[in-house]
């Protein structure tokens, strides 16, 4: 394992460990409102200051890490698998399958999914538990976020269909799903890894935007997405650089994920 991959793994484990230790590191919790110190800068009592209604930002970053760090990669995995199944398989099968898949993908890319999400919210009870709401949100993101990669995988599958090693495998008597799973799919890894890596921050940010529709992480639960939304108050954020901490953390985690996945990216000697 390369040095940088080891560093990346260590960073991810450290972030995971810190988020799991939130109960000890931030015993006051993420919801408690210190109303006398609303919007306060960092201090001994509040290491990253407080938000607009006095909640400790450090606690919210720690607890938010749990939600985003577990669920975003899970949703990214769902979208990656779907992209592989729909795009990769269709491209590999070719012909009508590929054409039908590409048409469906293009439609998916164009439709205003906002309204489906609004409908999903309407179907959920208002008193749904925050945990359930979060799960549903990330599940939906995973189910909707596969289309871009699927298109690229379709093209990849089409290219691989007539590759020499595939012909060789066919000549050896390997057919059907075995051929796809064992020989073709591993060669789609570069796109699958890229899809997975891109999806993690994309879903974290999308989760915050879904709050507009009543989905996403409900108050008072924090998430990285909701913390990053504070950056939209640009006029004030320049004077309050501690608000960038969730962004820095996200960049570190995302970069670490990329380094961990980077084995496939190594250029052949």
């Amino acid at each position, binding site marked *: 394992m390369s040095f940088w991959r080891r560093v990346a793994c260590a960073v991810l484990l450290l972030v995971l460990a810190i988020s799991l230790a939130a109960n000890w590191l931030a015993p006051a919790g993420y919801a408690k409102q210190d*109303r006398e110190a609303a919007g306060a800068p960092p201090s001994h009592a509040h290491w990253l200051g407080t938000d607009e209604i006095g909640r400790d930002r450090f606690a919210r970053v720690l607890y938010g890490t749990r939600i985003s760090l577990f669920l975003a990669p899970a949703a990214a995995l769902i979208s990656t698998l779907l992209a592989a199944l729909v795009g990769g398989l269709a491209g590999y099968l070719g012909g009508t399958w590929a054409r039908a898949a590409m048409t469906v993908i293009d439609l998916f890319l164009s439709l205003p999914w906002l309204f489906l999400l609004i409908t999903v919210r309407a179907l959920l009870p208002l008193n749904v538990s925050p945990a359930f709401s979060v799960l549903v949100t990330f599940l939906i993101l995973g189910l909707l976020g596969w289309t871009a990669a699927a298109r690229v995988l379709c093209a990849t599958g089409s290219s691989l269909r007539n590759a020499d090693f595939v012909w060789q495998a066919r000549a050896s008597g390997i057919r059907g799903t075995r051929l796809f799973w064992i020989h073709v799919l591993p060669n789609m890894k570069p796109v699958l890894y890229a899809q997975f890596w891109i999806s993690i921050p994309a879903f974290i940010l999308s989760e915050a935007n879904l709050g507009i529709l009543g989905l996403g992480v409900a*108050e008072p639960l924090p998430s990285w997405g909701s913390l990053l939304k504070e950056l939209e108050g640009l006029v*004030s954020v320049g004077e309050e650089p501690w608000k960038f901490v969730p962004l820095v953390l996200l960049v570190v985690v995302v970069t670490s994920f990329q380094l961990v996945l980077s084995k496939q990216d190594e250029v052949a000697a």
Partner: protein
Amino acid sequence: MMRFGKPIAVAAFCLAALTGGALAQGQLRFCLRSEPKTFDPLKVEDDASMAIRYLTGGVLVRLNRQTQAVEPGLATSWKISKDSRQITFKLHSGVSFSDGTPFSAEDVAYTVQQLMDPALHSATGDTFRSGTGKPETKITSPTEISITFPAPVAGLDRQFDQVAILSAHSPKKEMAVLGPFMVADYKPGAAVLLKRNPNYWKTDEQGRKLPYLDSIQLDIQPNRDVEMLRFKRNEIDLINTLDSEYFDKLASGSQNVAHDAGPSLDSEQMWFNEVAKAPIPEYKKKWFRSATFRRAISQAINRNDLTRVVFRGHAQPAVGPVSPANKFWFNSKLKPEVCSPDAALKALQKEGFHLENGTLKDMQGNEVVFSIITNSGNKYREHMATMIQEDLQKIGIHVNVVTLDFPSLLERMTQTSDYEAILLGLTNTGLDPNEVMNVWLSSSENHQWNPSEKTPETPWEAEVDNLMRAQASAADPKKRKESFDRVQEIAVEQAPFIYLVNRNALSAISANVQNASPVILVPQTYWNAERLLLK
């Protein structure tokens, strides 16, 4: 010196004659928060269109936003009959529309007929529609007109502040205006340019033609952060309604650009769903329909914290349905609710609620859990809902805060009644209680907590119906006030709305703008646009 005196004097005279003695002073720039939907003053229903109507429309009378008194406009004087059904206006003579078409009583009659056309469904028209039937107009001379309504209209003269007069004859239709400015250019999605109306009839005390400004540029900018950025960069001259956090940042600067005009007429409030057929559990309906429950919730909410934390001190705890800024109509006998979780709990316990392991339960053992919905994108309401969530947690009530996009919220509120509690605000553009008649009448669609009741479902709602009708038909302001004071008392006793805060009217005005004097009535900063000057 004498040799040049005469030519100079002649030149000055010619210049004065050409400019009509006007004090031409640049372009004012500010932002509209949304796209204007119409330039037809009779069809105005959104804020952006209202702003344009205010700046371009000529009205018979004008409510002075500073003194709150009604002043002559296109009408030099007026007389209201004892039964408040008829108003007679005497009009200015020699006035023309922006395209040169002469103005006369015929235009007033035309405007009234258009406004009161039932097919128009105009909000402005509906304020005059106190009874069935059309109004009658009688033109006694080109400068005199009587308008008779089928039923008394309370505050009849003030209502004409919202009626911009249209030309009956101009080919330009609603684009021919009588106000200080006229629409010169409109770039959809980008900006509206208003230019000085060359035929504006008004002059200042020195006889100089108004308006002083050459033009007003209205940029369409929904985002408040960007609006603030542009103000700081001097790309715009004023912000009509300023957020509290930005107020503090501007106020801490050296120039006196941030203005706090005090409590506005607007309020933030929450209410519970009291609709009998609402698709919510019966036991919850029982809670929400109990005045004791509602008052207990009200008592448990810390309004001081809401004003201090959410609005950074630029708001006041609300007392009742009327803001103290509405000096005449506010019931000064009402006192602010004192936050007391203990008293709230005691009141609930008398109703049969009890605490069990920190969770409040009703007599049947149901946990007291309900949701508060509010519109997403309004961070004040989101913060208030979260703070209320914590306040109610102290008395064992679990609240789920749900933010929804506005149309979805509206559907739950007005059509499906599929909600438990809502947190929203009420924007009051006027002072008269008649303007909110449709909120208090139990049969009305806007009787938010229980719309369109066939008959009043509670004795107190029946009393409110009677009181509102009484004040609407009374001519004597004292009698009207008595009735409406009682309505306010009932509103506080029964708490169909839990009034939370009255926000202050905050604005920002560049130091370059002269004669600005921000007020609480809409439009706060440019109510005297015709007299604004730029350095």
